[in-house]
């Protein structure tokens, strides 16, 4: 089934709302981090929202997602509830990973959302494997793998590129090129800074996209997804973007100029879409404030939900290290009890 790009007002407002949900949610997360409600690492996606929103709108519910530790935006755009995401960041059992993973490890099987992988490059072979399973079982689903340009320097990137093309696996690789691998600029980490070119050297269809423009990302994704579904071959999108905040919660941003950040902020995906909509009389101030009010209420509901979440009892510490023993077979005797005895 062909998925058409709808450039009508309703759709664009929906895309704006998705991006704003991510933006406002993460701004609140930063605040909650300051209040020590959220702990550990917190990697914000602010500035890059157009990529997740654009790509997700080209997918079907059957498709698989593999993302990184900077995945709040992907989870929201994929349809995981803001409540379950925030509760996860609070570490509560009503979180999408029962509070076990935190910000970096959002999982939701019902949305085919396979994390939340915090080893740079580690998700790429995994995505190729999911694609192989889809292909071999004729599931008519593809796998989307998001990763940063920092992953391109990893061996696993190249291994996965080679395998995906060699074995004709239905994967959409989405490189979110935000120009810094933590604090190391692209030119300091890549021999060839055109990442799409690097991917195409493996014989893969690859292109660069303006990752600050949600319409461009969606259009490119629709084209890519259609091609993957037709050919069962992988496709590579390099989305050129910029992260407005630091790498994580512990980043003094000594490696870049404030002027550079400002320059990118001015062409940010949210402000750009708002400006365009307003200039073309598609968005009234009142509509925007209504959207903002809806998002504010959603965030408040998520906070209430997270605050009410339970802590997992310590007695469940070792639960789910292994699967519960299957009652129907006597070949497996895995129990959490035996695990507990070892602890």
């Amino acid at each position, binding site marked *: 089934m062909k998925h058409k790009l709808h450039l009508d007002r309703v759709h664009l407002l929906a895309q704006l709302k998705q991006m704003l949900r991510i933006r406002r949610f993460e701004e609140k997360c930063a605040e909650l981090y300051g209040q020590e409600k959220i702990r550990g690492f917190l990697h914000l996606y602010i500035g890059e929202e157009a990529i997740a929103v654009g790509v997700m709108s080209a997918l079907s519910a059957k498709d698989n997602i593999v993302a990184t530790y900077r995945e709040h935006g992907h989870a929201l755009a994929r349809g995981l509830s803001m409540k379950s995401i925030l509760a996860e960041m609070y570490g509560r059992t009503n979180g999408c990973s029962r509070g076990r993973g935190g910000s970096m490890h959002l999982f939701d099987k019902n949305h085919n959302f396979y*994390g939340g992988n915090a080893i740079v490059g580690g998700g790429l*072979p995994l995505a190729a*494997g999911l694609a192989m*399973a889809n292909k*071999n079982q004729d599931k008519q689903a593809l796998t989307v793998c998001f990763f940063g340009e920092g992953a391109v320097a990893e061996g696993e990137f190249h291994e996965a590129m080679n395998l995906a093309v060699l074995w004709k696996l239905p994967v959409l690789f989405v490189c979110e090129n935000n120009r810094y691998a933590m604090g190391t600029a692209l030119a300091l980490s890549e021999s060839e800074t055109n990442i799409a070119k690097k991917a195409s050297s493996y014989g893969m269809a690859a292109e660069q996209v303006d990752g600050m423009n949600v319409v461009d990302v969606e259009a490119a994704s629709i084209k890519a997804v259609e091609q993957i579904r037709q050919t069962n071959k992988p496709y590579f999108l390099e989305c050129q973007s910029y992260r407005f905040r630091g790498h994580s919660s512990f980043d003094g941003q000594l490696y870049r100029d404030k002027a550079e950040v400002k320059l990118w902020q001015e062409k940010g995906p949210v402000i750009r879409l708002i400006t365009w909509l307003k200039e073309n009389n598609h968005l009234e101030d009142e509509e925007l404030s209504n959207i903002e009010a809806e998002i504010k209420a959603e965030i408040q509901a998520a906070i209430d939900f997270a605050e009410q979440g339970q802590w997992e009892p310590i007695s469940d510490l070792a639960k789910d290290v292994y699967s519960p023993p299957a009652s129907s077979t006597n070949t497996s*005797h*895995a129990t959490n009890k*035996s695990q507990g005895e070892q602890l």
Partner: protein
Amino acid sequence: MSEQVLTYREALRAGIEQALLDDERVFLMGEDVGRYGGCYGVSKGLFERYGAKRIIDTPLCESGFVGVGVGAALGGMRPIIEVMTVNFSLLAMDQIVNSAATLRHMSGGQLNVPLVIRMACGAGLQLAAQHSHSWENFYAHIPGLKVLSPATHNDARHMLIQALADPDPVIIFEHVMLLNTSGEVLEQSEASMEKALIRQQGTDVSLITYGGSLGKALAAAKQLKDLNISAEVVDLRCLRPLDTKTIIASVTKTHRAIIIDEAWLTGSLAGEISAIIMEQAFWHLDAPVKRLCTAEVPIPYPSHLEQAALPQVEQIVTAAQAIMAAR
């Protein structure tokens, strides 16, 4: 067919073949497992019989294809991944340790990874310092993994099927010195994969071992019998989780324990087992626990040095005599 005599290699192959026949989700993937027939010849002939979709030759990219195995398992397949040797598996350790072992717990129990990884291990073929090691303990250290060490032909034949029936990642170590040996194979496994088995009953000293050292322990037990020492030989079979109950029951009976482990002494499983005995059977001991492990050197190429590095039958016999003399 009640029982038959097979080489260890043939037993492994028969296990893989049964798995392929039993379940169409099963496939074998690894470097040279197909057209070449497997680096150690284990999968010879399977490519011709089952085809390229189920016997998959991979490029040389351990992390890549083990990661594909993890993803395929998540996606509903039942992959058997062959990594040529434990030495090469270090290149895939990220996928095994950071992905396969963590996904279930980290996702709050939503996901599981029904993956089996087979790899060769052990010294004795003069393959020197990058192809000969026994690093079962690296993986036995990791919660979320199960680690098997089939030391007998029957276990070589049946443990794979047991591992595939398990919903979690299982690593199987196949000692290279066993491949050409012949032994009896029964119609089914003698026990669940996580159970240790007493291969030789005895009353004076427990020889606790696994994998390639089981034969040495049994040979030592035979010699010890002539010396009027009754040795009990415990084959651990599963290195994670350890069958602590069987270990403790044996030591409680014999009051003495020698652990024979082809890994290096420092940080070895032998040390772990010794600690378990100390914690749970200290008051039953008549002598300190003894560990016989590999000398702490990279395995050297010349045979005399390689053999000098490994635990040997004579050392086991001497250690047993010494432990009996200690009072």
